[in-house]
């Protein structure tokens, strides 16, 4: 099946052909988390929306782990601990990102260090700059084979990233060309969507619109499914149009313990515990974590029941306070 073949670098012709196999009908997209995750196939390139620990589609990422798809490529602009999970569980063989870790206070990813420093051939890292990855998604979203940029020029990232240089035919200047990425599946978590999959987000838009437009399939979780009228009242705020969306799932706290603008702040203390455990017990602690939080529960509702309600209220309160303008 052609779908299963890996796309040649920047192959916008084949990427566009693949889009033809997708239904663009404005129909009801609502389904369950399990059904949505089943649209991910072994060997897929999964592009993850959000950034670092904000608006991460964690409910979907956990459900895919439960289902067991493997040989995956994961891409994300700044990758948080979900990247560690997929490596620890042996599900990802390629990681495309500009940065991997939880954030400065939590140090360097131990499992990434072990893999890279031990020369583990099971995981291949594609390292590039934050902007270069953004432009690779954007080139895909624009239906182009590449975009020119000045970033990365002169650095050693040029020698390891999939990039070429060219001489500008208008100015004679040297340009870096980054090839388009066309992921197989995009995972996106949003604040609200109508049942046709028209999605709106509050706060940072990050790279999600580009990630969705560049990908062949688009799976969306939303904190809330709202009426069509609510979307149509402010169409300027729609980030992803319904015709791009293949599956839509209502998933309150679908990014928890990562954060959602105005809804809940990230649970830093959860990251502390996660990292402390790895520091104490080694990277095997990631497997223990997954056994408890992912494989040990049947679904997202059971997962959320593992968290302290009082703590959640605190995080919700801070989120509300931070977006309040008197």
């Amino acid at each position, binding site marked *: 099946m052609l779908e299963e073949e890996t796309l040649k670098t920047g192959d916008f012709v084949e990427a566009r052909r693949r889009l033809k196999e997708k239904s663009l009908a404005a129909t009801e997209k609502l389904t369950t988390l399990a059904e949505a995750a089943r649209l991910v196939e072994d060997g897929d390139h999964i592009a993850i929306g959000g*950034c*670092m*620990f*904000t608006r991460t589609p964690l409910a979907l990422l956990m459900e895919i782990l439960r289902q067991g798809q493997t040989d995956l490529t994961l891409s994300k*602009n*700044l990758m948080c601990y979900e990247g560690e999970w997929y490596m620890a569980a042996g599900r990802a063989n390629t990681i495309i*990102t*500009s*940065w991997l*870790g939880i*954030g*400065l*206070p939590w140090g*360097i*990813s131990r499992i990434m*260090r072990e*893999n*890279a*420093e031990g*020369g583990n051939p099971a995981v291949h890292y594609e*390292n*590039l*700059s*934050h*902007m*270069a990855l*953004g*432009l690779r998604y*954007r080139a895909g979203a624009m239906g182009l084979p590449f975009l020119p*940029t*000045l*970033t*990365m*020029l*002169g*650095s*050693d*990232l040029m020698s390891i990233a999939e990039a070429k*240089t060219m001489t500008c035919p208008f100015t004679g*200047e*040297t*340009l*870096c060309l980054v090839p388009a990425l066309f992921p197989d599946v995009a995972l996106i978590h949003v604040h609200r969507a109508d049942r046709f999959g028209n999605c709106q987000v509050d*706060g*940072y*838009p*990050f*790279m999600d*619109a*580009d990630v969705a437009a560049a990908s062949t399939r688009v799976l969306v979780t939303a904190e809330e499914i709202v009426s069509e009228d609510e979307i149509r009242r402010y169409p300027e705020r729609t980030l992803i149009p319904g015709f791009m969306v293949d599956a839509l799932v209502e998933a309150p706290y679908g990014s928890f313990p990562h*954060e959602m*603008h*105005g809804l809940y*702040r*990230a649970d830093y203390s959860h990251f502390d515990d996660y990292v402390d455990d790895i520091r104490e017990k080694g990277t095997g602690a990631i497997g223990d974590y997954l056994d408890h939080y992912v494989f040990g529960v049947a679904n997202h509702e059971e997962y959320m029941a593992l968290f302290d309600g009082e703590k959640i209220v605190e995080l919700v309160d*801070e*989120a509300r306070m*931070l*977006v309040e*303008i008197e």
Partner: protein
Amino acid sequence: MSIAYSNEELLAVTASREMVGVNTIFAGVGIPLLAALLAKQTHLPGLTIVVEGGSIGPEVLPGYLPISTNEMRISHRAQQLVGITDIFLLTQRGFLEVGFIGGAQIDRYGNVNTTVIGPYDKPKVRLPGSGGANDIASLCRELIIVTKHEPRRFVPKVDFVTSPGFLEGGSSRRDAGLIFGGVSRVITDLAIMGFDEASKAMQLEYLHPGVALEQVVENTGFDLLMPEEIPVTEPPTAEELEHLRRIDIDRRFL
């Protein structure tokens, strides 16, 4: 009257003073953000702070300093929120005057490494990666590097150029296609360094109060250019420290 201050406070104050006549700054979390917030409160009322997550002109609530450049704590009261790629494109267009980065290794031409210590294929230490550091270093009108002054950090040649300074010195940065920018200052807990106009090699410019020249030499793994006179940095003022400590009331970063 001199007040006791931490290394971090000295770094933040020094960095804030380096922003003279600056109107737009690409700031990371930690010291750069504190320096920018301080500068806006003291001498740069017209400053717009920009962060990588896509936030333009945010404010920071005292006690709610962000840990990452893409969370609500640093989109609070923003004037605009745009996509990450768009923030970098604004930078590529030339709208960002000053960028700040740190790094695990820095060399005599201001190149910075946050990718690997040792060879790329089998590194001694795998670091987190570029994030936006390469982009900030490539695209801002000028770059300020803030880092600890240690011999393992200040190396003759970085193992991997994650973020370009002046590359091999001279015109090599421009020759590589980077039409503007370059490192204007390296600020450490010991000193302030600049770069020679022609060779683009790093040179000592100021010593911090109480720091001996030998300390800098010992903690730098290559020969710094030495001008004839090396003045001493003015210590942080009471007003500067008061501002800083009001922003970071829990002293998370100070």
